[in-house]
């Protein structure tokens, strides 16, 4: 069972719908015992960074602990941004610090938010892009991005007038700036790959 963290922000239901659609057992919950027993954790997020961090509250510490213990964790959009150290969206806010780097505004000189379908150059070493080829369009909707400085992280980029990190993997920690749950067939495949990874990891334990 995969747990989608329910912390009073938008789009959590869409993430659950997409997992159910691919036949994955999923629970929307914020209960610590559910998080501990899940085979994988999804941290979704449609919210401003500061609101999301305060809504997550004490759950942040638990998520960090189980992720460091090896359980697969997938952060999506703001849920992905929260895996980093700090954001400057509407004030300064600390994230979970699982990945090195800060969340900063997309540089001026282009249309912002970065909204719509952009081509991601898939890093084939990353687990969640298995079977998707060398590039695919995914749906983005954001004004801030993570400036990834983590030397241990594998990164896939998209071109928005600069190399914008679209997805990151560091061991069992996965993050996507785009919305796989809203990226049609390619997005559902990414979620399927996460589900498969969780199953595989839970069998190893």
């Amino acid at each position, binding site marked *: 069972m995969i747990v989608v963290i329910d912390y009073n922000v938008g789009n959590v*239901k869409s993430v659950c719908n997409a997992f159910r659609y691919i036949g994955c057992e999923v629970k929307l919950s914020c209960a610590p015992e559910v998080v501990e027993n899940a085979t994988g954790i999804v941290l979704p997020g449609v919210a*401003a960074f500061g609101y999301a961090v305060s809504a997550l509250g004490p759950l942040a510490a638990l998520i960090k602990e189980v992720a460091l213990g090896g359980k697969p964790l997938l952060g999506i959009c703001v849920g992905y941004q929260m895996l980093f150290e700090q954001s400057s969206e509407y004030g300064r806010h600390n994230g979970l610090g699982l990945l090195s780097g800060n969340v900063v505004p997309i540089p001026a000189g282009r249309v912002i938010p970065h909204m719509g379908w952009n081509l991601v150059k898939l890093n084939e070493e990353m687990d969640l892009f298995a079977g998707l080829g060398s590039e695919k369009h995914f749906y983005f909707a954001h004004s801030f991005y993570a400036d990834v400085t983590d030397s241990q992280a594998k990164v896939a980029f998209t071109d928005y007038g600069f190399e914008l990190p679209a997805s990151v993997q560091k061991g069992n920690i996965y993050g996507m700036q785009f919305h796989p749950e809203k990226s049609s067939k390619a997005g559902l495949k990414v979620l399927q790959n996460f589900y498969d990874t969780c199953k595989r990891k839970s069998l190893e334990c």
Partner: protein
Amino acid sequence: MLTRRIIPCLDVKDNRVVKGINFLNLRDAGDPVELGARYSDTGADELVFLDITATIRSRKTIVELVEKVAENVFIPFTVGGGIQTVEQMDELLRSGAEKVSVNTAAVQNPNLLTEAAQRFGNQCVVLAIDARRSKERAGKWQVCVKAGSEPTDIDVVEWAVKSEKLGAGEILLTSMDADGTKAGYDNELNRAVTDAVNIPVIASGGAGTLEHLYDAIVNGGADAVLMASITHFENYTIKQIKEYLRDKGVPVNL
């Protein structure tokens, strides 16, 4: 490179999709959930659902509709029509909508855009503007509210610029003069707004041919094009639209 988006718009009344001309003379275009799923499966980039009755009774219906749509649609969709408060936005976003659009409520209380952006992030906040060519001032457009029934003194371009500062993350710009006519978008209007703001603009109203879509993107500067009649009644498929645009050099997700 970011692609230009093709966005079918589903005007919903009494749980049916309808389409009118100049905001009047409605014609039935099918079931919203079925039509939404069909568009999601056939390559639309995004959808917009507008509750055009927007009464207290229809509010409950639209939340249920959003839930059903979200179970079958794996592309982003925006919901609008009669939204007044941050709590109503929250309910729709939690039901599965990616974005919410506001129109009249933002004109009456511009601070709503700021409150919404601080809570949900500005990428969730779409400002819908119903624009009508001004009879008094040439080359200007006036903002209309209450489903287009009430003109205001507000200038469309000024309102667009102000809304971006307040927290709008996207503008859904409908030309009331062109809506439903299938005679082409108002690209003077589109150009005036896209030149003035730095957030994405969705051109709406008047799509009748493939060339109209191309013109709105190239001459109007639109980041996305909204259409209803030409795809609902299957004059063109999404694939045909995207192939046409691709062949003319417009980046699309095909």
